[in-house]
């Protein structure tokens, strides 16, 4: 057996992390206005918009659905941004439940920042990327808040996820 982490497990981890931050930012709304800079975002709310908007974008791309333009993503409030994530999770679940899904099919990416050798990833790789993209950003956000004097208590390591044993 080749040991592996299933995308169901990564999706559960992604959802758990998103749920933590939704609850934490709901309880501490002033954090949303903190200056940020990560990924060129001006404040924490814009970073969260990037994280959840990208979730949705990749889910639509993988599902072959029309993609909502980044400029059309809502700016806020948090509930509306979280809806982007929830919609993405719905799309991801549909993909994972589709027995006919061809995970070895390739996408063609022509975005700046993608090295040429990485521009034709399989759907499997793209979903792995999409589910781990947020985890890297949550780690950055946890650091940003701690440095600003507002530690979140976020336990972002996979070890703490109940999505796998």
């Amino acid at each position, binding site marked *: 057996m080749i040991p592996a982490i299933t995308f169901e497990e990564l999706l559960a981890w992604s959802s758990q992390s998103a749920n933590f931050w939704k609850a934490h930012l709901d309880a501490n709304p002033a954090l949303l206005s903190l200056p940020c800079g990560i990924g060129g975002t001006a404040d924490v709310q814009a970073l969260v918009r990037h994280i959840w908007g990208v979730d949705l974008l990749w889910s639509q791309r993988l599902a072959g659905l029309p993609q909502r333009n980044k400029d059309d993503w809502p700016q806020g409030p948090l509930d509306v941004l979280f809806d982007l994530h929830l919609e993405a999770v719905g799309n991801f679940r549909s993909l994972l439940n589709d027995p006919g899904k061809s*995970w070895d099919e390739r996408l063609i990416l022509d975005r700046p920042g993608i090295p040429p*050798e990485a521009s034709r990833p399989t759907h499997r790789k793209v979903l792995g990327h999409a589910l781990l993209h947020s985890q890297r950003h949550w780690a950055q956000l946890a650091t940003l808040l701690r440095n600003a004097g507002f530690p979140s208590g976020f336990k972002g390591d996979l*070890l703490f996820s109940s999505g796998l044993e």
Partner: protein
Amino acid sequence: MTPSITLQELLGWCEQSADFWKVHLDANPALLQLPCGIGGNADVQAFVRHIWGAELVWSQIICGLPVTDYDVWPTGPLDALFDLHLAAIRNFRALLENPNMNWDECSVHYPWRRPEAPKPSPRKALAHILLHSQRHWAQLSTLVRAAGLPSGFLGDLLACSALD
């Protein structure tokens, strides 16, 4: 088929990221002295020590080897810290090549585990430590960029050549 990422692929990603930072920090040694604070580390060098030392400790725990005490880890130079990573990689490879490994048995005890915390399986423990470094590299990337010294690190899985 349940789509998944193999631990072999996560190991490849882990190596590629570590190799990037080794080269980048070798070329820019002044970065090692930048104040850090992440995980209580005073500077970037201490933070890198945490990242690669944790890999070694987890590799030893999962392999059932004696665990190198935190106080015994070298504090530098960078080459000596990278050796911690390389030793971890050898242990990870030995695990992945062991046909008798029971990956799903929730049997891994780590010394700082709280009594109420469940024991993870070797599969979860190995995935945890292979992703632990990725989360920290993302933080380091932000730290050096905020200090005005962007690294050009492409940390997303999308940029990794260890899987198609």
